[in-house]
């Protein structure tokens, strides 16, 4: 109902409606509370304004009343908390099988690369109805990826990946803001997200220069850096076999078990000695400073592509083509 009001942001993602619903609930609650308190104050102020010969009535207070107006708000707060937590949990858990876009933020631009290969600067094209997961990192300071129309925001940190996801529901062009202050042209670090119908999107995708998928460029980089000498696809290598590693728990030498997510792979490339896989020696050279953020993204995308895409992607129209492509790279 607020779609046409100029004072309300567009709703263009699957999650936006949930956020708006909670927001409207909170607005109504606040309006009610304000109205109640302000009315009481106004009524008291007129009714009990100072009159000659009328003394104030001394009232000590009432524990029952105090407890009532502590417990009832607390109850309401817990409802708000739970409702908000559900939305947040949803926002922070990307669905399996989402197509991936790698984002590198730097002062003061957004560099994005689709897993299919196309690169964009300060622009992101996505189709309607597809889950898109953003895997983001920064080259310098903290930035924040903010698309008001999608109601998503996530700080982008140097030295690690942070992720966000959305499913666009409405074609159009929306603002992409950097919302974490990042220096001189912080307010110039804006771009746009173009949401297209799937057919148009496929046309756009094939229209660009064909650089090959991100995983493919990752693979050639993997070869180039000589990684396959140790990371062989059998069990004979001096390094762990990387096939099927991603998304699974990894047993470390010191007894810990960690989940092999994007950040784990990233750390294992940049600072291999931090987490040694059980049964292997810390012989891998450090790649900190040798590979740039975008190369790193390609490597991560490649290593992820070595793990079979989850079958849970079913039921999400539009995610089909990427899923098969990933599996092709595997062998």
């Amino acid at each position, binding site marked *: 109902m607020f779609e046409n009001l100029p004072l309300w942001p567009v709703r263009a993602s699957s999650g936006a409606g*949930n*956020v708006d619903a*909670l*927001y409207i609930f*909170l607005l109504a609650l*606040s309006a009610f509370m*304000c109205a109640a*308190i*302000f009315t009481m*104050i106004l009524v*008291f*102020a007129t009714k*009990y*304004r*100072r009159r000659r010969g*009328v*003394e*104030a*009535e*001394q*009232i*000590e*207070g*009432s524990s029952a009343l*105090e407890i009532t*107006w502590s417990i009832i708000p*607390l109850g309401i*707060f*817990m409802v*708000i*908390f739970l*409702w*908000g*937590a559900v939305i*947040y949990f949803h*926002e*922070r858990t990307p669905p399996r099988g989402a197509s991936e876009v790698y984002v590198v933020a730097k002062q003061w631009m957004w560099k994005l690369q689709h897993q299919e290969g196309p690169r964009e600067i300060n622009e992101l094209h996505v189709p309607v109805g597809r889950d898109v997961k953003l895997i983001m990192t920064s080259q*310098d*300071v*903290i930035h*924040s990826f*903010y698309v*008001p129309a999608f109601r998503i*925001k*996530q*700080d982008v*940190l*140097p*030295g*690690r990946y942070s992720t966000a996801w959305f499913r666009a529901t409405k074609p159009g062009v929306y*603002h992409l803001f*950097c*919302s*974490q*202050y990042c*220096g*001189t042209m*912080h*307010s*110039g670090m804006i771009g746009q997200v173009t949401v297209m119908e799937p057919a148009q999107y496929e046309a756009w995708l094939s229209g660009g220069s064909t650089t090959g998928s991100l995983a493919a460029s990752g693979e050639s980089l993997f070869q180039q850096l000589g990684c396959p000498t140790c990371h062989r696809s059998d069990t004979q290598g001096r390094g762990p076999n990387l096939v099927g590693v991603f998304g699974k728990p990894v047993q470390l030498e010191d007894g810990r078990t960690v989940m092999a997510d994007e950040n784990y792979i990233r750390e294992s490339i940049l600072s291999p000695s931090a987490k040694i896989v059980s049964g292997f020696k810390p012989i891998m050279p450090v790649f900190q400073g040798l590979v740039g953020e975008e190369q790193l993204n390609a490597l991560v995308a490649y290593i992820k592509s070595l793990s079979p895409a989850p079958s849970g992607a079913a039921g999400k129209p539009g995610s089909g083509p990427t899923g098969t492509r990933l599996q092709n790279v595997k062998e």
Partner: protein
Amino acid sequence: MATAAVVAEREHYLNKEYGIRSWLLTTDHKRIALLYLISITFFFFVGGFFALLIRLELLTPAGDLVQADTYNKLFSMHGQVMIFFFLIPSIPAVLGNFLVPLMIGAKDLAFPRINLLSWYLYMIAGLIYIHCIVTGGVDTGWTFYTPFSTAFSNTRVIEAGIAIFVAGFSSILTGLNFVVTIHRMRAPGMTWSRLPLFIWAHYATSIIQLLGTPVLAITLLLVVFERAFNLGIFDPTRGGDPLLFQHLFWFYSHPAVYIMILPAMAVESEVVACFTRKRIFGYNFVAMSSIAIAVFGFLVWAHHMFVAGISLYAALVFSILSYLVAVPSAIKVFNWTATMYKGSISFTTPMLYAFGFIGLFTMGGLTGLFLACLGIDVHVHDTYFIIAHFHYIMVGGAVMGYLGGLHFWWPKISGRMYPEAWGRLAAMLVFVGFNLTFFPQFILGYMGMPRRYWQYPPEFQVLNVLSTAGSTVLAVGYVLPMVYFLWSMRYGKIAEDNPWGAAGLEWKTSSPPPTFNFDEEPEVTWEAYNYEQIPAPAEVPVER
């Protein structure tokens, strides 16, 4: 400046001695309060000047009034000046300094020389900061987020950091003095349950100052070390975690919000009681809610970091804890409202500020619920929604409280009445101007306008113009009291000892009080807010 106005023959703290030395070397808490008053007023107008420039820049979507770098410095220095050099010391160091010993019946604070030292530390910090401003300023935002502040900013971060470090110790010493004074210096009969709520709230504030400020001090020091000596504690290129800085920073800076708002609540309790002529409804609950706010305030800091990359589980924990601190704040609002029931309410300037405070604080507090709520915070974090929210708390709450308190105790401080009509006009201007300035920013925020933007998409312009228009009204509302307070020091009506017919020990001594506060040591035999025993003044004293 205050000495010039005094003509009464009776000896009191203002006319006991004259000359610059008698002020700069004073250990009298009342004189130190006035020293603070002058210095924080100066910084208030410095910060206000930056604010006006920011609002003027935002009149148009394009960045046309100042350069981007200048704009970044303006909002950074606006924040730092207003928070560390105005709001944190405002009520505690001026009204608290003046009133804590008077209210508990002491001759002075426990450590008068440390009190003076704390003012000197504040002045040293202020001078360093002014030097920082005039030699180029600082552009890190008031939050100093790393790695921007440590490795990327080209401005005078070290100087700003050291200034705030020193100001922090000034704040610690004030808090330390209050706690010791409240524990050790109470007059005979002044039991804990007889303390004015002003004292309870200042006690809670002091706890935060004591236990929170050192963490800010060390955090800023580590940032300074990182810039100056190449240490790498927050440096992501060496494996450091930029979020660690944020954790440490907000460990202080969230409770710091309560350093600003608790004293304002302290003022409101006194003012509401006086002008409804009633004991505050639920004294125990209001007193304990201050302590609860101080303690719970330390448990919620990471709600500033819901989108910063903290773990999902930590976010859940900090969100639920954030709601805990909302309960005692709500208790206070309900109790003030309940106090008005069957009262005898008069609409003096301080009471108008109190009405304004309750209204604006309620709105600020309710929008705080939005921000503690994980699902909403993701969308509105780092937008103008946040800006509006914390200005409702800090300006709508703390500054309204400060101005209300200044009017309420002005007769005691200066021995003169301010012109009531002008006072009411200024209070109305502040209220209207404030809402016009900051309400549109809630809408801007939900529409998605990020904070700290020098230029912005044109669809946000209408609301920004409204906001800028409001800020000019607000500015007039702030200049007016300064003018008529100064005027009243020479021309104002001589104040009686207790012009409002208020309860509280501070009204039992003369106006202005003698140097040692009371001619005879008071002995307290009554409960706080014994308004049934105090005759109301025949009419609300109005100038001329």
